[in-house]
């Protein structure tokens, strides 16, 4: 299973879905690898409409992930499911969504990463590495935490939380396979340029 390196997580409070849908073709063309549909407190019926609209613009090689809900992932023909730390078990999810789809898991500690080892998701998302407006008041877990999680698991770790293009080299040096971003792309004045710069930062380190 190919694991994407540049993930965008949706947040309707930062970028409303209609604006995001209009932006996405350019973001994908600029090198965005994956989009995670995440929206708390949005009714399921509404989310299904959004998921299907995302499916039309998040095209290969970019992958569409639905957060938490297997039913929405199936109905929108998403490429994968991303589970919160306390979500469904990976094996139950794989049983429902079948082969050929990726399953990710968020973790917020080395202990949680250790628990995830036995259930073998395709990747972990770990954070928040730096301070972020998405989790106000939550102290950064830092690059040391990231390094410890990378050491604890045999699969790729995606770093999240306050990631900027300038921080990408340090994050990759700590062992991260890729990054997941909300405001670093959607909160900027030029999201397409932001994707391009993130892409260069990720690919530049890869070539070394």
């Amino acid at each position: 299973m190919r694991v994407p390196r540049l993930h965008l997580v949706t947040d309707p409070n930062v970028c409303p879905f209609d604006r995001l849908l209009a932006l996405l073709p350019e973001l994908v063309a600029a090198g965005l690898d994956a989009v995670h549909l995440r929206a708390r407190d949005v009714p399921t019926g509404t989310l299904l409409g959004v998921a299907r609209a995302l499916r039309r613009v998040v095209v290969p090689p970019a992958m569409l992930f639905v957060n938490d809900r297997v039913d929405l992932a199936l109905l929108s023909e998403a490429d994968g499911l991303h589970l919160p730390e306390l979500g469904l078990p990976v094996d139950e999810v794989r049983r429902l969504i079948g082969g050929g789809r990726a399953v990710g898991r968020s973790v917020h500690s080395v202990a949680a990463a250790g628990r995830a080892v036995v259930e073998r998701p395709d990747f972990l998302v770990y954070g928040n590495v730096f301070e972020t407006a998405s989790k106000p008041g939550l102290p950064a877990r830092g690059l040391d935490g990231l390094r410890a999680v990378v050491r604890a698991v045999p699969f790729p770790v995606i770093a999240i939380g306050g990631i900027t293009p300038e921080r990408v080299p340090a994050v990759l040096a700590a062992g991260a396979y890729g990054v997941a971003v909300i405001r670093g792309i959607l909160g900027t004045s030029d999201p397409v340029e932001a994707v391009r710069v993130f892409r260069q930062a990720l690919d530049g380190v890869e070539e070394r």
Partner: protein
Amino acid sequence: MSGWRGWRLREALRLYVVTDRATARGRPESEIVRAAIAGGATAIQLRWKTGPLGEALRVGRELRALCRDAGVLFVVNDRVDLALVLGADGVHVGVSDLPVAETRRLVGESMVVGFSPETLEQAREAEAAGADYLGVGPVYPTATKPDAGPAVGLEHLARIAGAVRIPVVGIGGITADNAAAVIRAGAVGVAVISAVVGADDVQAAAVRLRQVVDAALAERGR
């Protein structure tokens, strides 16, 4: 499981108890459900609106086992994926959840699909889309579901029950004192939260409601 149709489904809808953590006042779901079944509940719905899904899975497995042992219909609210993982007998969706047709696509033919229409038109559409039963309400004013809107009353329920062939249960503010009128309006049963889950003696509350429903059904000649 495809046996939950026809008369068996109607029987299972007599006393339909919906879980609600806030109403249970700290008592675990399994304790509430065990007592409700002992008192005569015929269907249990796991309604999980907040909290991690891993916890819902743990609770759901307990309720799944209790219902299976007692031959009681076990339904999951909104989360079709959770219903599938738990091997529930049914899944229940509302107007802001997944549409009935999409729900049916996911669960296949054997699982019961319930729907809560707000209008007569939605009730007819849901029946055509493959819903097996309808939950209509709130029949009476209720504080348990602040999003449920104003009470729609018995006439609304009667209109829907008369317009569809699938069974209808009333929900919303139903107690042992007003349940008979819901059956007389055309419902095959009553769905309750507070009247059972919020009772000091859950089992006794279920017994009383079940007696009222059974008596009203017998009087109507079913």
